[in-house]
């Protein structure tokens, strides 16, 4: 199984991506560069969420807590206590991981089942919003403004634009590779077993608590780190964007549209929908605010009704039909 | 009255019933025997329209009902007393009976049918306001049959009515079945209890792994060596 991972790692596709990444961004107008960066943020977030939501089949709506911690806490630590943002990133990730572990433990201890898990994580997400909005240290309802990005790497500054692009590219690829690695490791196998039949998994002696905690902690820490990088790019730590349940609903929908539980599914969904949404917003946002979300909603409903396993499997089928001789790389 | 022609039904594309044919004339009691997992419940649910058959056809009183919904079949009088009784546990006996007669054809005659059912099962009269879930197994079987009668059945199909009942109750229920037959009802009786069924039914089919292994008049089926073999799964 490990070979699969190394094969992916050695794939020539990376070379192509690297060359494109080096050549394209300087040529892109800044507006399109922004769209590319945003797409990468959501590729990273959707892939991170997939470890819990897709592989373990647990629709967690609490991930806005981890993203929000990564963004708001690291910013607050810097502004209020002067903590270097690299250290802030680590602190936030550790706290997010601890919260994730706690949620996984609660899920295990009380044997929540799928529906209760969705409901409880939604309640946690809402509580997170209320706490951030009511706590001045984290910026309250008005948010926090980071100092200007002067490109000082040691202060977690990447010079905006192209620098942010590279950071997001690294995070997105890391997030996807972690997906590939988990899917091809025992952890991935056990998570699928738990997802498909938790009782059967328990009966054959799978240590459910261990795997649930592992998945949640990896996913939470990853989301937190992405949150920190995202807020550095945005400069403004906006609680209505970063801690609201809407961000997690978007992520769930991207992952669903792409294909839950697959290594590239959520990334595919985000790559498809984020540019679509952003371009729509750019063109029509002034006259029709909300149009891009509206379209996301319509797309996800259509995909669920027509291809419940997501669009990626559909594309794979077309692809392999178009090139029947091609080696099937997953 | 009922003709089943080369019926094939299954779950998820895997056939369970393989080419089953049977007939039932008006006023007959026909027994359908078979070991566990032979496909008896699958057959009765196909007759009720719960699953679309993979092939074959079902005719009732000369009419092709193969494509009819469960609701339409209830309305033309094909009524099932399901395996395990499946009474509505949180509802009173009275409400269960009312639900039995909820179909468009029977709805307006419910008071009359209710009197008939309660006369047939005086026990239910005493328990009219009690929740069905609190009844004993035998009483629940009475309720399930009563509920089916409320629907003004023309063909009454019973799926293992003796399952889990004490011998006394089994005697009682089979007495009721005989009485309903005497009143002119056509009955398809699904059972595992071989001797009992052979005694009460005029003709029998023996189902073995989704196929009809033996059929004929009850005494013929009784003496056919294949019956016991199908039964013991040899």
């Amino acid at each position: 199984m490990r070979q699969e991972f190394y094969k992916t790692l050695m794939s020539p596709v990376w070379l192509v991506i690297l060359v494109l990444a080096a050549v394209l961004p300087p040529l892109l107008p800044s507006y399109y560069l922004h769209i590319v960066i945003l797409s990468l943020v959501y590729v990273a977030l959707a892939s991170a969420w997939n470890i819990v939501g897709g592989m373990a089949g647990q629709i967690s709506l609490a991930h806005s807590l981890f993203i929000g911690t990564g963004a708001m806490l690291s910013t607050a630590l810097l502004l209020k206590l002067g903590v270097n943002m690299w250290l802030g990133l680590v602190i936030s990730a550790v706290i997010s991981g601890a919260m994730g572990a706690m949620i996984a433990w609660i899920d295990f201890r009380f044997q929540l089942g799928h529906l209760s898990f969705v409901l409880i994580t939604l309640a946690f997400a809402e509580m997170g919003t209320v706490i951030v909005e009511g706590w001045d240290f984290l910026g309250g309802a008005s948010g926090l403004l980071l100092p200007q990005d002067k490109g000082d790497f040691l202060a977690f500054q990447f010079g905006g634009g192209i620098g942010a692009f590279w950071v997001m590219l690294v995070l997105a690829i890391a997030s996807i590779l972690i997906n590939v690695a988990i899917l091809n490791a025992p952890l991935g196998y056990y998570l699928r077993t738990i997802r498909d039949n938790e009782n059967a998994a328990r009966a054959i002696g799978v240590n459910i608590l261990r795997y649930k905690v592992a998945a949640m902690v990896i996913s939470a820490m990853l989301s937190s780190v992405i949150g920190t990088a995202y807020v550095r790019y945005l400069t403004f730590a906006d609680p209505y964007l970063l801690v609201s349940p809407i961000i997690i609903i978007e992520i769930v929908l991207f992952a669903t549209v792409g294909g839950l539980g697959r290594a590239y599914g959520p990334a595919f969904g985000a790559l498809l929908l984020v540019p679509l949404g952003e371009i729509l917003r750019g063109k029509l946002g002034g006259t029709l605010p909300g149009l891009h979300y509206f379209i996301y909603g319509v797309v996800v409903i259509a995909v669920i009704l027509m291809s419940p396993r997501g669009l990626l499997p559909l594309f794979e089928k077309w692809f392999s039909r178009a090139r029947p001789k091609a080696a099937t790389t997953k | 009255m009922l003709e089943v022609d080369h019926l094939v039904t299954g779950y998820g594309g895997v056939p369970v019933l393989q080419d089953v044919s049977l007939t039932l004339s008006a006023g007959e009691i026909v027994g359908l025997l078979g070991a566990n997992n032979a496909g008896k419940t699958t057959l009765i649910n196909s007759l009720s329209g719960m699953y679309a058959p993979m092939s074959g056809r079902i005719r009732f009183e000369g009419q092709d009902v193969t494509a009819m919904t469960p609701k339409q079949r209830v309305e033309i009088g094909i009524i099932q007393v399901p395996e395990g009784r499946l009474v509505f546990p949180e509802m009173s006996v009275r409400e269960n009976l009312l639900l039995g007669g909820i179909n468009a054809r029977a709805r307006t005659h419910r008071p009359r049918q209710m009197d008939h059912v309660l006369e047939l099962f005086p026990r239910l009269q005493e328990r009219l306001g009690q929740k069905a879930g609190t009844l004993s197994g035998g009483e629940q079987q009475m309720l399930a049959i009563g509920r089916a009668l409320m629907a003004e059945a023309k063909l009454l199909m019973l799926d293992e009515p003796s399952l889990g009942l004490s011998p006394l109750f089994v005697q009682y229920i089979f007495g009721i079945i005989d009485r309903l037959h005497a009143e002119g009802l056509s009955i398809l009786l699904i059972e595992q209890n071989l001797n009992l069924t052979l005694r009460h039914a005029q003709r029998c089919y023996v189902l073995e792994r989704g196929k009809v292994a033996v059929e004929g008049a009850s005494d013929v089926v009784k003496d056919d060596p294949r019956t016991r073999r199908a039964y013991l799964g040899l």
Partner: protein
Amino acid sequence: MAEFLQALAQGLLIGSTYGLLALGMGLVYGVSGVVNFSHGDFISLGMFLCLALYSALALDPYVSLVITVPLMTVIGGLVYWYLLRPMVGHQFLMVVQLTLGLSLVLQNGILMVFGGQPARTPSVVESKLLILGDVVVRVPHVIAFVVSFAMAIGLYIMLRSTDFGRSIRAVHQNAHAAALMGIDVSRVQTLTFALGIGILAIAAALLLPGTPIQPAQGLRYTVITLIVVALGGMTNFVGIMLGGLIIGLSEAYGTIYLSDTLGMLLPYGIFVLIMLFRPQGLTWSSSR
């Protein structure tokens, strides 16, 4: 003491309407197992329809009901028939994602039509007060209380003593057996969903007078409803109405005796504890 009584009145009055919101969700869950995450956005839809009718025809929200209730009922029926019914037999989780998608569609459809500014819909009774000793209550709240309980009692009677009500309960208790009675299960599920959305149209008008509305509020209403339903027991009628009152009271007292933030956290805290320790809610399902 006056403050205490004031909060008591306020909590009970608003809580009754929360109960009504939750009855719709509980009914739908009971017959089709669907937890509708766009529930709150349908409430928004009801409120904005009232706003539109006020802007266009100067109708009072209570009068608008004549139009919004049938309209929303039909919309609910169509949504179930074309979007949710095809999901029967699929994984339950897909329904969660589908209704989340529906929530985005509704919320942003409203945003596109009405814009994002908070809006008010005036009503003739909006500023009328009722003074009972130390306690001052707003007339719209009293109307909401009376109508909510009347609706709840009406629904209860409908479930107990009509054929449609018994069909709903039959599908809830055993859908297979219900089908064998000749009940069209899909039809009952569709009508129940339509009924649930129709109830929301009424609840929307009850909550509307004096309340600023904005398109993004839907999720909050969904969460409040979920909390009430979890508290009362998904399919327990009396429990749900009680749950509504408890959440109404905890909101009212929370904002008085605790800080704003803690007050707002209180219902969620109660919810999490209930979910963890009593997954069936406060009272065991007995009335259905």
